[in-house]
């Protein structure tokens, strides 16, 4: 299972991506996050610091952490890389099962179609 501070930083990324917290806006403090998620504030701080290290958040001395202007871009780039990595694993599994490239592409197209129908 994923460590809590990673779950937390991913949740914050999604909040930023979905526009619930915008660039320049102050993000939750470690204490607010501790209360929301019922976790130790030191763990919450770890989740925030990951995002600060990746320049998704920046610190203002004495004021807290804020969403950086490039946050959305950085998160998108990171998430795309994650999709690529998962895809590589998927391809490996498909090779193991002798699924051809065209068959795999057909599967992806079908999955996309189904998602679209479910959303509609």
């Amino acid at each position, binding site marked *: 299972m994923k*460590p809590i*501070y990673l779950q937390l930083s991913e949740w914050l990324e999604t909040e930023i991506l979905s526009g619930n917290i915008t660039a320049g806006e102050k993000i939750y403090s470690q204490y607010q996050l501790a*209360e929301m*998620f*019922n*976790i*130790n504030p*030191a*763990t919450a701080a*770890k989740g925030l610091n990951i995002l600060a290290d990746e320049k998704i958040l920046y610190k203002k001395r004495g004021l807290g952490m804020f969403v950086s202007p490039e946050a959305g871009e950085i998160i998108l780039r990171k998430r795309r890389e994650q999709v690529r990595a998962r895809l590589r694993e998927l391809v490996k599994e498909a090779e193991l099962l002798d699924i051809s490239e065209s068959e795999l592409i057909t599967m992806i197209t079908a999955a996309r179609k189904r998602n679209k129908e479910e959303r509609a």
Partner: protein
Amino acid sequence: MNVIECRGLSKRFGRTVALHDLSFSIKENTITGLVGPNGAGKTTLLKIAAGFLRKTAGEIKVFSSPPFNNLKVSANTFFVDDNMALPATLNLSETLDAARRFYPNWDHQLALRLFDYFSLNPRQLHKNLSKGMKSTFNMIVGLSARCALTIFDEPTVGMDAAVRKDFYRALLQDYLQHPRTIIFSSHLLKEIEDILEEVLLLREGQKRLHLPADQLREYAVGLRGEEDTVKRFTAGKEIYRREQFGKNSIFAAVRNSFTKTELQEACAAGLEVLPVSAEDLCIYLTSRSRGGIDDVFNRN
């Protein structure tokens, strides 16, 4: 700043060694979970820290002073267990009033609100409470005292699951608003690990592990699959637990020093890579046999 500092601390009761050469420190304003099997020395350690017991050898300092017979330590420490010496003639509400006069940071509003929430009867005597109600009352006193060092020694004995959950939440909330040093001994690591900052694991009176709580889950990893393959991947690693699984398969829990690539190779070789929970890790690290209870039943 460290609130507790131990160096080579030992405690003997006659010929029994309860604590042996224990060294660690606890930082100010942290919540530490003290875990370990029955008889590991948790209560002894906590009672020495609170000044109830005298050490045998080594050094312990609480608020920079030896805790035994120390007024500063007593005034700033609250010790909650199921054996609290409360005046037998006072009812619960009178007990709260009495406790209020002892502790300068006492929050009477908090005490009354918790008292109400948990539906305690103010006219009742402590000795007539059920086990779970006693624990609930003790916990209320411990939280409301707001002592700089608050020690809970298995505070949830007898509490039902809902009350335990409320207690953990109340503890965290009050800690966020009034940070202080809290030590919490418990056998229910799974329930409390999220609110802990650190975990101190004891085994036979010695320190087995002292780590940030969120690192415990990543500390070990389990590999399950064909025996020879598991052996190949775990060669040279510290093995905490080995269990037979099916005919030719085994499960092995080892220190997680694998790289991501190594774990992927293990998967590719047909092994299952399983997380080891903090609770399981603590059980593995403190059990006497590497096979666990199954060793009793496998007599081959």
